[in-house]
């Protein structure tokens, strides 16, 4: 079979592909016009885009930025001779600050802005583990106390004393663990700070404030509103629910039946009812559940319910993270003699939380979007504010501009967060391979 043998003497060079394969034509052919079906789809899509753009663009183009009222807008637009009317941007100009900050005093608006910036600084070491030193996590911890102080104001002592509660808990655990055993020490470490927060903080901080009155102006939460309110409710709820969520997730994974079923019951209950019913609980029932005379303001109550709501979802996210850890990690920790809490704290949770970050971000996006529901119980979040703005005789009857503005705000923030979480997910997946 000598005919079989063949040797190429000269290597062929690379050749240009046929024109139908590359370049604009190739691209069009393979992406838009491959086959009659795709061609039809393309044409329909083009028409759809044309119809959409041609109906919206003329409306969007409307020089009404300076208008003082809807009627003025209407005049400007009809002077232009536009058929289908035009947008009235005057309301955005007049009210954008309100939509962003609610009734937060003008001269203090640097505080929420600063808080937002610091939030990013605080999140950086968590969200971008590689790029930032782990030392910055200290700031993240401090931020938890700094942020409420910046937002609500008051004397500096209150947040410091609240933080001191944690320190008390920590040392209570550390020093009593040897003497009375871990479990009792944990109970003590939980009980002491709570007592401290409930009874000691008020008088002490007053006392300190009278000696060294260092503080910033108090801003009451009823002045919170607009987009800032949404962000703030979301951030507070997620931050606190992280702790609750970890506890619930551990509870749900626990081998102890009662603990497990309590956690499952709580999680399933919260996840089984609509957020709006929880908000109704906040607005109508929470005060009834509290001891007579306690009076949280409505925003605090909403935050409490939003926190409970988020913690159930976070618990499920973290449970996923815990389940993703190989058994070997638990066993290795056991074999080294670490007890349950130490192995959770040092080995399991750091890894599980890291895996859970994309899920946590998604939960946050969901919660953040859901904060708009507070408008239904009368809080002035952006959607709630549209009602108040339209109650102003000047802007009575305005719709699209406000909704559009709010939609864009939400879109920008949620979209960027979801991109981040997708990026992180991809990175984690790569890291695991």
């Amino acid at each position, binding site marked *: 079979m000598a005919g079989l043998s063949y040797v190429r003497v000269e290597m062929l060079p690379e050749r240009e592909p046929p024109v139908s394969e590359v370049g604009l034509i190739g691209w069009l052919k393979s992406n838009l016009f491959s086959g009659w079906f795709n061609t039809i789809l393309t044409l329909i899509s083009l028409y759809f885009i044309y119809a959409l753009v041609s109906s919206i663009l003329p409306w969007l183009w409307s020089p009404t930025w300076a208008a003082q009222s809807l009627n003025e807008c*209407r005049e400007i637009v009809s002077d232009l001779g536009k058929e289908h009317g035009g947008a009235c941007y005057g309301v955005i100009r007049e*009210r954008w600050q309100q939509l962003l900050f609610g009734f937060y005093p003008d001269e203090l608006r640097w505080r929420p802005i600063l808080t937002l910036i610091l939030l990013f600084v605080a999140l950086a070491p968590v969200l971008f583990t590689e790029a930032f030193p782990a030392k910055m996590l200290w700031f993240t911890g401090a931020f938890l106390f700094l942020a409420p102080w910046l937002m609500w104001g008051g004397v500096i002592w209150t947040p410091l004393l609240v933080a001191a509660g944690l320190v008390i808990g920590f040392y209570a655990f550390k020093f009593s663990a040897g003497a009375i055993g871990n479990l009792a020490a944990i109970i003590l470490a939980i009980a002491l700070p709570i007592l401290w927060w409930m009874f000691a903080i008020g008088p002490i901080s007053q006392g300190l404030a009278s000696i060294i009155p260092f503080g910033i102006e108090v801003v*009451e939460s009823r002045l919170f509103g607009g987009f800032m309110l949404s962000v703030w409710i979301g951030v507070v709820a997620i931050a606190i629910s992280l702790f609750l969520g970890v506890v619930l997730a551990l509870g749900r994974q626990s081998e102890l039946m009662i603990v497990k079923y309590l956690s499952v019951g709580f999680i399933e209950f919260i996840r089984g009812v609509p957020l709006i019913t929880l908000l109704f609980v906040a607005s109508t029932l929470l005060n009834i559940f509290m001891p007579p005379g306690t009076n949280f303001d409505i925003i605090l109550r909403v935050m409490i319910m939003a926190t409970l709501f988020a913690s159930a979802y976070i618990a499920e996210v973290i449970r996923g993270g815990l389940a993703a850890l190989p058994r070997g990690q638990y066993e290795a920790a056991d074999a080294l003699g670490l007890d349950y809490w130490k192995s959770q704290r040092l080995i399991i949770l750091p890894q599980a939380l890291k895996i859970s970050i994309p899920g946590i971000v998604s939960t946050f996006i969901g919660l953040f979007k859901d904060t708009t529901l507070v408008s239904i119980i*009368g809080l002035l979040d952006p959607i709630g504010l549209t009602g108040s*703005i339209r109650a102003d*005789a000047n802007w*009575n009857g305005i719709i699209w501009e406000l909704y559009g503005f709010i939609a864009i705000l939400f879109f920008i923030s949620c979209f960027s967060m979801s991109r981040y979480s997708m990026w992180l997910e991809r990175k984690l997946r790569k890291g695991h391979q």
Partner: protein
Amino acid sequence: ATLDDVKARGSLKCGSNSGLTGFAAPNANGEWEGFDVAVCRAVAAAVLGDPQAVEFVPTTPKTRFTALASGEVDILSRNTTWTLTRDVDLKFTFVGVNYYDGQGFIVPKALGVSSAKELDGATVCIQTGTTTELNLADFFRVNNISYEPVPIETNAEAQQQYLAGACDTYTTDASGLAATRASFEAPGDHVILPEIISKEPLGPLVRHGDDEWADIVRWTLNALIAAEEFGITSTNIAELSNGTDNPEINRILGTEGTMGEMLGLDAEWAKRAIMAEGNYGEIFEKNIGESTPIGLARGLNAQYKDGGLQYAPPFR
């Protein structure tokens, strides 16, 4: 007691509407303005000496009563109709009526309807969570005609639906109708039908069980009304408080008698209340009167001397 709480707090918590043209709405600076708002400001001025010392808590029809019952607000001044059940069953005290209203209908002129009884089969926009829907159901049942209710959360949305023709008629308190109509592009194309199908005495309310506080709010409101009756206005009040021939004016302004002390306040309480936003008439004119875009006539809310129902009991 509420009074002590308010004084200790240094501010009055007032439940308000989250947005009703002319009655309560925040302006571009975030300050609340409106007819109902003015009542709260007057009370704050009387009690605390500062009409700005009010925290407004926006409430919805559904959350307003809980807010008051749970102590979240000290006073609810939010176009709330005084009814027996609210007074007795829900356990609130209505301290008076700051606006006599009634439920009416607005229709486009083009519809050619001149009486509500001709609305058989019409689609009716109503704001939910109020007495309105009950009145409406009763009215149509009694007249044996049918209708299609379209429940709506806020006045702004109702207005939008009505204007677009999604309902034939919009029903709410006549004051609201007028306010709404005022903001239309062409108010003249719409008529408010003559039938007023209910009595809607709107007034501020407080919790049962704290009569001292109820008295303060009640008499602050009365002082505003009486001030109009006696011609005390925010412009001449300084002059009048130097003393006048009219003993009742003197008693109101605290130059005679100890009425302030009886209420647990000081002598100038009513003077401050009136100075806050003016007397009842001034408040009316400024927020919803004929000179405003809302353009409500005094009608039932005129002083009794002018044939209205506003009648302040004597300061004596």
